[in-house]
């Protein structure tokens, strides 16, 4: 849960928040591509570190650390599976390189989480919806998207209320075998679904009452405009992409244990 906690948007104003979501998305995809290109630890460390200034600039360090902590569990799973399987495969002699390889794989995942969390922490869902609209996604989908985001906390709260109410009436959720436990959730799901349907009807009524679908040429209160910051980020991203591709084919990448021979000699 806490990993998702780190993806929750909070309104802060910062140069990163003001960036166009489309440019930020381009950046995330580029990060993704570069991270997948490399299997060595050194460039992945570099990728990890160059994103840290973005986090501090966006003033979301606290939430970002939270999301990283949330990712730690998955990261350790990735680390151990990689480690165990390579170990079984290659044997004991290659231990240091196995270790480095597993760490690299783990860091690759962390870099991905890092860039995604920067994106979600600094992009308001409203702007994201707008970006989708500007990318010619039909308005109905964009609206569904932002509405879904808006109702997640409401439904979560409602689920909790229903759960408490049913528990107070003697429903025991954590009792019995798996089948029984799944069945225990039925008295929670049914009111939740019924409520959701009633809610969506009321929403539809309210939307209709506010001229939903009056014209095909809907306007928008907000506007996406590329500004200086957007060009800078786009440019930086392109430069990074080019450098990364170039380095991939033309520069032999040393392993960390070769740089620090004291480790290898042991």
């Amino acid at each position, binding site marked *: 849960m806490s990993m998702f906690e780190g993806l929750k948007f909070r*309104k802060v104003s910062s140069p990163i928040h003001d960036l166009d979501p489309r440019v930020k998305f381009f950046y995330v995809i580029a990060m993704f591509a570069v991270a997948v290109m490399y299997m060595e630890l050194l460039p992945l460390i570099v990728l990890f570190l160059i994103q840290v200034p973005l986090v501090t600039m966006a003033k979301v360090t606290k939430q970002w650390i939270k999301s990283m902590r949330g990712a730690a569990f998955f990261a350790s799973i990735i680390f151990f599976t990689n480690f165990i399987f390579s170990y079984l495969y290659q044997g004991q002699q290659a231990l240091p390189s196995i270790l480095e390889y597993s760490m690299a794989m783990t860091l690759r995942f962390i870099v991905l989480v890092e860039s995604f969390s920067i994106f979600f922490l600094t992009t308001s869902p409203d702007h994201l919806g707008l970006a989708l609209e500007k990318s010619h996604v039909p308005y109905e989908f964009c609206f569904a998207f*932002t509405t879904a985001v808006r109702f997640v906390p409401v439904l979560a709260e409602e689920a909790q209320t229903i759960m408490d109410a049913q528990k107070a009436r003697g429903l025991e959720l954590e009792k019995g075998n798996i089948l029984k436990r799944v069945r225990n959730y039925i008295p929670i799901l049914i009111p939740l679904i019924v409520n959701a349907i009633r809610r969506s009807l009321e929403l539809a009524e309210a939307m209709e*009452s*506010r*001229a*939903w679908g*009056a*014209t095909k040429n*809907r306007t928008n209160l*907000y506007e996406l405009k590329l500004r200086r910051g957007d060009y800078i980020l786009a440019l930086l991203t392109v430069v990074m992409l080019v450098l990364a591709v170039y380095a991939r084919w033309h520069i032999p990448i040393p392993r960390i244990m070769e740089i620090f021979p004291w480790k290898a000699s042991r």
Partner: protein
Amino acid sequence: MAIIETEKLTYTYPGAEKTSIENISIKIEEGEFVLLTGPSGCGKTTLCRCFNGLIPHFYEGKLEGKIQVVGLDVVKHPIHELAKHVGLVFQNPENQLFALSVEKDVAFGLENLGIPRKEIRQRVDWALKTTDIYHLRERPPYELSGGQQQRVAIASVLAMQPEVMVLDEPTSFLDPLGAKRIFEDIHKLNKELGITIILVEHRLDLTAKYANRIIIMDNGKVILNGKPREILDSEKARLIGIGIPKVTRLYQFLNGKGMRLNYVPLSSEEMAKKLKEVFKQ
């Protein structure tokens, strides 16, 4: 011409056996503040849905009789066209706000109408200031209190600059103080902007003093329709069991004891003033 006019309006929900409203013939004049009340299930919400075309366009079912709003035949005009003239505010504030920021929510209707961005901005800011929530404009609606949310709902309807505003028990999710403030705001919209108000409400204690007219429904029919002082003092109103304001009851009590006050007071302030005058004599 009246701003709302119905003639023998009768409606049955799809699949229902009974009519929900029956033979409703009312006229509401421009600038009036109408209080609509009656026991639960008597058809108040159903009637409200007719005013902006949710019935028959959204709910289908069987509608008979005539209804005209702002000179438009409701049956012949789509909801989005009527929405420019009639704003509806619902009971549950949570389910009528969809956006992630207050200002975006207030802009929703205007965006749907395709109004240019600059004008949207102006009208949104104006609506936010009029309802006193300008400082909340960037907050997500779901983090606000019930009263603030209901204000957002009112602002979002107000931004569309309708001639008529219909509010269906807008305060039933609020505490008494929050409710009182909402009623004051609604009164202001009526007095200062001349918006015709139809307010569905049980708490006559708090609202009777603002009304020019009270309409009482029972079992799908309009059974009383007239000036607040007359309606509240009538025998019929008492028998239906609507919440007659306490000051009116006090008036009736004093009247029974032989103390003559020359009109039915609608608020405790009015009562206090009246009593003072009487005691001075």
